[in-house]
């Protein structure tokens, strides 16, 4: 039966996450001036409060499902501006779980594994990857050389899963390699100076003659591996939902002080311009919300749905831009002040239409699928 209502357990878990997001809001600006600072695993305010993800794990059968709830937990957390408890969600771990052998999984399961895909030449086209993995038959080792940029968890990760082009007498094409911290020739750059999401650990990686045994070669089906992105895309849209919800709530509160309240019954000739624009944003927010639920529901029931995921991501990216821009315009000059959070949300939210595949890349993925065109035919 089609249903959009939460279970009692859903509500309990999400309410707790929302309460914790409120507690985290006081730390929202901690990284604004000091991007080299690392996010703590947990802030003291979390002391004595249950971890919402542990609640989810313990009672998953009483919820709407782990995938849906996990995405909604991110939505709640992003209302706060920084997470009260760090929840590392790294695609490197997802890829290991999909493509690693049982031995490889046992070895790196509990590590934080950054995914290293994007290169200075670009991130949207993996086929253009220049980083190489050269097979050295004399030592039976792979030698990794290349540079990766914009890598999340670059500094705090235990290892990086690197996409590289194989140079091997019998193998060719792209594959992934586990390069652990401390490997000779693996260096991490300094934290990037970014417009927003300054609490996220982002830096470049350089691999210069890193030698790896075959046991570090995560040799799964690459196509399948890259499809794991389908899982994380709706999660980014959930980030966008959280940030934009906080900005819209802030804007509505200021508008209420000016006597403007949401009127869902009024026709277009009976709304102020501000209320009309805000209601358009509310509609876009709800539209994005249902596509995120849809993508995660499909994933829960049928495995990651490539198209549903890209629909949600494209919606989330566009929502983040439109909501923050419109709300800042409605709030006027006061909204620019660092005394309040909307200006931070404006800077943070801009990344959501870029990372994990830009809005344009999502559209390419969808367009190729609905039109039945290959990447060669539509690019």
């Amino acid at each position, binding site marked *: 039966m089609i249903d959009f209502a939460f279970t009692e357990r859903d509500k309990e878990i999400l309410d707790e996450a929302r309460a914790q997001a409120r507690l985290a809001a006081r730390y929202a600006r901690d990284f604004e001036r000091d991007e080299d600072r690392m996010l703590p695993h947990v802030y003291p305010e979390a002391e004595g409060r249950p971890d919402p993800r542990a609640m989810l794990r313990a009672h998953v059968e009483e919820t709407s499902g782990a995938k849906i709830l996990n995405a909604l937990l991110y939505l709640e957390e992003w209302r706060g501006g920084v997470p009260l408890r760090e929840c590392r969600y790294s695609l490197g771990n997802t890829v290991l779980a999909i493509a690693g052998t049982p031995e490889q999984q046992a070895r790196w399961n509990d590590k934080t594994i950054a995914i290293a895909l994007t290169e200075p030449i670009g991130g949207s086209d993996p086929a253009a990857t220049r980083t190489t993995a050269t097979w050295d038959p004399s030592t039976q080792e792979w030698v990794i050389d290349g540079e990766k940029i914009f890598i999340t968890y670059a500094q705090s990760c235990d290892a990086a899963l690197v996409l590289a082009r194989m140079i091997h007498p019998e193998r060719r094409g792209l594959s992934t390699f586990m390069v652990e911290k401390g490997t000779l020739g693996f260096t991490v750059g300094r934290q990037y100076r970014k417009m927003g999401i300054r609490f996220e650990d982002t830096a470049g990686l350089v691999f210069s003659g890193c030698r790896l045994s075959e046991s570090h070669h995560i040799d799964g089906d690459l196509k399948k591996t890259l499809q794991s992105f389908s899982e994380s895309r709706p999660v980014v849209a959930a980030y966008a939902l959280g940030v934009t919800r906080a900005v819209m709530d802030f804007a509505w509160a200021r508008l209420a002080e000016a006597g403007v309240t949401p009127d869902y019954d009024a026709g277009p000739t009976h709304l102020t311009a501000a209320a009309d624009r805000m209601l358009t944003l509310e509609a876009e927010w709800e539209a994005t919300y249902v596509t995120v639920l849809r993508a995660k529901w499909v994933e829960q029931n049928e495995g990651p749905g490539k198209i549903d995921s890209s629909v949600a991501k494209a919606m989330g990216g566009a929502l983040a831009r439109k909501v923050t821009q419109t709300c800042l315009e409605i709030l006027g000059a006061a909204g620019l002040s660092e005394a309040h959070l909307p200006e931070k949300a404006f800077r943070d939210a801009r990344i959501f239409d870029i990372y994990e595949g830009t809005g344009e890349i999502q559209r390419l993925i969808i367009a190729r699928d609905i*039109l039945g065109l290959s990447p060669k035919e*539509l690019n």
Partner: protein
Amino acid sequence: MISFALTEDQTIAQHAAAALAQAHARPAARAADEASAFPASLIERAWALGLVQTAASGDAPEQPSVLNAIVIEEVAYGDATLAAALAAPLGFVRAIAESGSPAQRRRHLHAFAGDAPRFAAIAHVESGWPHKNNQRTRARRAGSGWRLDGAKASVPLAARCETFLVTAETDAGARAFIIPAAARGLAVAQPRGSLGLRALQMADVVLEDVSVSDEDILPGNVRRILDSGRVAISALLSGLARCVYDYALPYTKQRVVHGEALARKQAVAFKLTDMHIATQAMRWMMLRAACELDAGASATRSASLARRYAAEHGLRTADEGLQLFGGHGFMCVMPLEMWYRNAQSLCVLDGSFGV
């Protein structure tokens, strides 16, 4: 518990509606538009889907609004005008069945439980240009009853309606009044023709000092009627948008410009992508609002936002679909200009339909 799974009954109803849309509604749509009338057989076929009769029987299926919205959407995929012709009496019957007193249900529902199509409509849209008062049709107390004055616009199939559910402002807010078409002082104007949904023969209903007894005022306020109307508009636009998208997509693969299929150009492919995204989001929003209606909670926010999104993106989808055909889209030999007119019309008909 969040779920997008339709029940077996919902799937069966959806398939029946899809079959009607493909075999009968779509092929007849252009002729109905040109004649400003449906062939009787087509109305009978739509009626045979059973939505109105079921609503009138008092034996509500599980999630009636969801079921009705799914069927209306599917018929609208074939022809939004035909779907609207079904959603208009459905709105009336659902309002009486859900909000009416036992006496009102006994008196007004029986006629709709049979196999022959019967007509009635909610008359909500105000006649005339935008005005500072949302609701100019007024009901004032007169003895033990009410007297109504005002004018309603764009009432679907008004000339064939036996009864109207007229919304009017009272001193205690908007209420809905059940008024027979034959009531003294009620006049159905000649249809003037309209931009779209032409076969609905929409006409003004003018009320001059119409007397209504207390027994004919619907208990409670009109909120639920309006919310149901918003879901209906969302369903109509959702079906229409999906129809335009499905029609335009294959064309862009066949049409060669500058030596290459239109579909292989990003500017075109991305338009189709945005149409796909919008039709998905419209559909889920519409179903969410329908779910909330069925759950009995206030659905005003979700229904109003679903309608707002559907109006903007449904129209844009019809608009961009037409654009993809260039000059052919403008020609009446193709359905795109009709769909475009229908989409624009649906955007302004709040409260005329229901699920």
